[in-house]
């Protein structure tokens, strides 16, 4: 079951800031009441100006539920993004930011839900999937998990080094693609996530219990349609669409 959301705003402290890709930073927060959450959930962030004006956004949690004491939100800088550019340009370690959550009860997975599971993420859509991958690793689960990820270039692939290391356990498999450059290393492919790629992934994992797809709306739409064409039933496909 999904934990009951904690809906009160909490004042969280920024414990660390990491540059993950040229456009995405990871913000690590400590909260007075660490939230019990399920991988895939998000937190709401509230910024308040001195005159009371406020801006809110939702950001997916990237860290594992096993570490509620240190919540990581990965935030992509958006063109004209009032909140994302504030995080990228102004926020420093030690700052206090209001958060509430966890929120969202559909795009979630824990090892108790079983598998195998297939995770497909485009760009920053990898964030909630990474929480699932980290949860899977923290629990030393033997459930087969395949992550299919794509980004413009190799440096845009979120958490690539960590994902490469996690493959050593033999149950987590990474399939990564870059869309706007030739792949520079043998374990990366070039080109978009397309039908032959997904066909190959499904040949290796013929009956995924749940397929999670996250990314921009065109990405999710394309991938979900391909999955339906390849015979995955709609009830097994869960989507989360970023952007806008």
């Amino acid at each position, binding site marked *: 079951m*999904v934990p*009951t*959301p904690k*809906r009160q705003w909490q*004042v969280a402290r920024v414990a660390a800031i990491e540059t993950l890709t040229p456009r995405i930073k990871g913000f690590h927060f400590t909260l007075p009441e660490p939230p019990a959450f399920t991988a895939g959930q998000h937190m709401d962030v*509230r*910024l*308040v*100006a*001195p005159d009371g*004006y*406020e*801006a*809110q*956004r*939702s950001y997916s949690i990237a860290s594992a539920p096993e570490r509620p004491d240190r919540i990581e939100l990965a935030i992509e800088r958006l063109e004209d993004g*009032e909140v994302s550019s*504030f995080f990228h340009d*102004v*926020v420093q370690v030690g*700052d*206090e*930011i*209001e958060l509430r959550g966890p*929120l*969202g*009860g*559909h*795009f979630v997975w824990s090892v108790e839900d079983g598998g195998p599971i297939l995770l497909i993420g485009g760009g920053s859509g990898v964030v909630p999937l990474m929480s699932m991958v980290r949860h899977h690793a923290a629990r030393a689960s033997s459930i087969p998990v395949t992550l299919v990820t794509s980004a413009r270039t190799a440096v845009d692939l979120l958490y690539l080094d960590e994902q490469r290391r996690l493959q050593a356990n033999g149950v987590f498999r990474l399939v990564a693609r870059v869309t706007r450059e030739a792949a520079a290393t043998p374990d990366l492919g070039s080109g978009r996530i397309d039908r032959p790629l997904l066909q190959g992934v499904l040949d290796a994992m013929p009956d995924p219990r749940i397929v999670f797809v996250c990314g921009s*709306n065109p990405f999710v*739409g394309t991938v*979900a*349609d391909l*999955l*339906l064409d390849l015979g995955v039933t*709609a*009830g097994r*496909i*869960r*989507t989360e*669409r970023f*952007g*806008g």
Partner: protein
Amino acid sequence: MATRGFSGRGRTPSGQDRLPPGQYTTADFPVLSLGPTPRVSLDTWRFTLRVGPKPVKQWTWDEFNRLPMTGVTQDIHCVTKWSKYDTAWEGVSIDDLLADAGLDAPTPWVLAHSFDDYTTNVPFADLAGGRGMVALRYAGQPIDADHGGPARLLVPHLYFWKSAKWVNGLQFTQQDVAGFWELRGYHMYGDPWREQRYSGD
């Protein structure tokens, strides 16, 4: 609590009285759905009105399109924080739908159903009196499948998850029955002006 260094450059002074708390405006029309966009054929499309489990009226696509059409232009507010001003819709008001079925609301509660098994609850009072419709057109065109076409519920004064995409039926229920998101922590009513995002708000 004021956030250090935040002044808020996104505000639109002239529009503050039409922007609910915690929302920002967008010119885009973002898409949020819980799964794949369902493939709905107009040949097999049906809209069913139920009282409890019992169907009381069903329309085909052609029959539905012969019902009186109403146009509205309204602001819409998504619980994920975006708002979009002046969205123009055309469709069948719930008043006209019930009139065609010859039905007076038998209970105060309605559960909307969709082709993807999505459900959401809306009090009948929020659908009646021209406040809700089954929309068939957006901005003068048939509604894109991504945005809920061929038909979606439109209840613009509530958070937009109440405006069920791919709607295929309304069901009067004996009590207020939680729908898909309402079972997953979202508010039973969802008034953007009272910022009723999550249960307990």
